[in-house]
């Protein structure tokens, strides 16, 4: 009969009430420590007994990591702010609605109530071989089970695969990249601020992580500058189910036009590679062009250049092409009289 696996291995639980204490604990325990935010990523790993950390540092008691603050140039979102708070926050909805839209499309209402923005951008990949405990490259082994002749890879990467073909599952990450957000980290050497797109890494840099955090590091906040406040935004997420699903792919764009010409634009997709991709070539190609279907189509084709499909994910190439197109030239509303 089935083996009951939903029992976590024992660990020491620490619940610090300040960032300083959390950092001290993380430094003390190094790679033995596991950072717990909302728990949506962590508990699958722990209950499946695939990750067995000796120490868990629970950030839920640290008030200073919560909430949205206005700054001299934009806003700062504490890493432990829930996705529900992000999706409903009046300033985010008014000025940075791209992020509110993305946050609202994450998983389900219950998960958004518990899940945090910091967790959403720092979560691990959902490759089902890796999550199932298969000893793959990402898990320290020497094979990718998804990239085999019979591997089940419908949800895997079409771009920048390097031994591992897993993708980043975050919905808020591309929105934050499009908004030119900065991620604030606490490291052993002090505070470090990085551009959103530099927070994420592919297997060519480190095959075991999706982001730059090292043991002992903590993501404390995300800053959004006012550069793109009130710009024209487009976010679309394609998923199998209408709720409680990771993206097959998503796209986020922020655009400023004048006389219907694209003056400034930032655009990113996720679900295509191990990191959310900022499409710089597309941004350069469409800048100065009219915002119309021809520009959208040109951008879509450019975006998928170099894409390599696996056995079951070739659909991601037209999907990415069309999503990029729509993120630039929009999509026609269809209303039928019932």
């Amino acid at each position: 009969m089935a083996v009951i696996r939903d029992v976590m291995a024992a660990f020491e639980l620490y619940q610090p009430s300040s960032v300083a204490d959390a950092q001290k604990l993380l430094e003390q325990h190094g790679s033995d420590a596991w950072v717990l935010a909302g728990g949506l990523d962590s508990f699958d790993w722990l209950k499946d007994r695939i990750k067995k950390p000796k120490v868990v540092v629970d950030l839920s008691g640290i008030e200073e990591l919560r909430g949205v603050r206005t700054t001299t140039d934009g806003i700062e979102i504490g890493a432990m702010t829930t996705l529900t708070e992000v999706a409903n926050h009046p300033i985010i909805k008014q000025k940075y609605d791209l992020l509110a839209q993305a946050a609202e499309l994450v998983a389900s209402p219950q998960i958004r109530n518990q899940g945090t923005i910091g967790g959403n951008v720092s979560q691990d990949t959902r490759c089902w071989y890796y999550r199932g405990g298969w000893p793959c490259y990402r898990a320290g082994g020497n094979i990718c089970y998804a990239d085999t002749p019979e591997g089940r890879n419908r949800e895997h990467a079409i771009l920048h695969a390097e031994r591992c073909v897993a993708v980043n599952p975050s919905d808020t990450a591309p929105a934050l990249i499009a908004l030119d957000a900065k991620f604030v980290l606490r490291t052993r050497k002090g505070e470090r601020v990085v551009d959103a797109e530099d927070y994420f890494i592919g297997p060519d840099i480190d095959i075991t992580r999706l982001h730059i955090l090292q043991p002992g590091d903590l993501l404390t906040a995300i800053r959004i500058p006012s550069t793109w406040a009130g710009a024209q935004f487009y976010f679309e997420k394609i998923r199998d189910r209408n709720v409680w699903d990771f993206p097959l792919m998503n796209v986020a764009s922020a655009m400023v036009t004048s006389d219907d010409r694209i003056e400034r634009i930032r655009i990113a997709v996720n679900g295509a590679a191990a990191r959310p991709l900022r499409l710089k070539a597309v941004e350069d190609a469409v800048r100065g062009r009219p915002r119309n279907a021809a520009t959208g189509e040109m951008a879509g084709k450019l975006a998928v250049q170099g894409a390599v499909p696996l056995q079951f994910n070739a659909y991601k190439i037209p999907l990415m092409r069309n999503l990029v197109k729509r993120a630039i030239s929009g999509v026609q509303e269809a209303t039928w009289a019932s």
Partner: protein
Amino acid sequence: MFVICDNGPYDAVGDSASSGRIVSLLYQPQAMRWRGVTVLTNTPPRSAQSSPGGLQGIVIIEPIIAKAARKLGVDQVAIRRVNCPEGKAPFGPAVQGKRQYATSAFLKEALDRGAEQFKWSERVARTPKRIGTKVRGVGVSLSCYVGGTIGFDGLLVITPEGRVIFQSGIGNLGTESVIDVHRAGAEVLGVPWEKCDVVWGNTTKNLPFTCVSGGSQTTHAMTRAAHAAAMEAKKKLQEIAAKKLGGKPEQYEVGNERVFRKGGASMTLAQAAKYAIQLGGIYDGHEVPADVHKLTKASVAALAGQGLVAAAKDNYPRDGSTFSYVASFAEVEVDVETGKYYIVDFLASADVGTVIHPRALGGQVLGRSTLGIGHAIGQKWVFDPHYGQMVSKRFYQNKPPTILDVPVDMQWTALDIPDPETPVGARGVGEPPVAGGCASILNALSDALGDEIFQRAPVNADTILTSLEAGRPMQHPLMAHI
């Protein structure tokens, strides 16, 4: 029909035989060849899911009928109306020259009712079909599965306080049948439902031999048993009244919580229960009918002396096999640039005999339709074929449908035409809607996209987009779950 059942590592299940039987009933082919093969594979173990065989058979045939109708220029409802079963419809192979047949089928009426309520003709005629990147399509499907068994026991006690206590052995799945079927007994006795109690839960509560809560049989099987027990109680009430008040038992009627002779003497059920205890023997459970099951006998023995105890086996005749039927209608909206589609509307029109509890029935019809919709829109079970290992272990990976995947105002309707082969007229409803939920969605998608985009289920954004891109089906029909 050639069915290969990939059964995992253990013994064969009955899905392949069931698929042939159900298809032969639902489409009434004049000639049909069926073959079934079960193969054992080095993959995770599995067992039957709701509407085993019926689901697969109907979901294979429905798109073929839909395609045929399109090629012939015949309306989808009309072609199904021509081919669907009616009355004592035959099914399955002839054994010694004789074929089995259904107790009844009013599926044509269900199709007509559904087409009218769904405004089928208006939806088919609506133009344009495409606006921008969105295309709409409508689909209809027939559906049926087994709907009832016979031969179980009913048991009730009329107490000296005048209450009627139904002993219910039904396992409560949340469908309310554990309670509802006994309304048939209350009706026979003419006792208001407020004066009835239902005892249920486990066998320490002295429950009768009852069908298992599965196979869509409970409403049929246990309304019959409840009816039989109530008829037995009624007979005893008449005998007690005749003994105490004179006359012949058949001169007495039961109603308004009394046993009475027209224009003459009467007694309350409470008084009759006291007399039953005084009389003992067959009246208060100290003796028990010989034909009831041993489990029922034990329960009767435990209840003996508490009032008028009536136990009876369902010995009612039945000519034919019991099935329930559903006509399912769906409209979808597909975005051809992303492959993403939404189910815009859904209606299930049910032929399930007499309606016992409308809200519970509606819950069953739409709930099981949703289970079928899950098979259309992506519920899946993925294993790596090289290693034979499951990879879709968690709900976010095997994707059962959510409430937001079905339309907000899904509709249902039921004919409420009694089945002539059971005293209460009610048939079971659990599994019959499942295949229609799945196939109506698949047919609506084909109506929107054409017949050459997919030949499989589930159909997801990737199925649609990769095939639209290539102009032909790109996912192998037998590689259902990827």
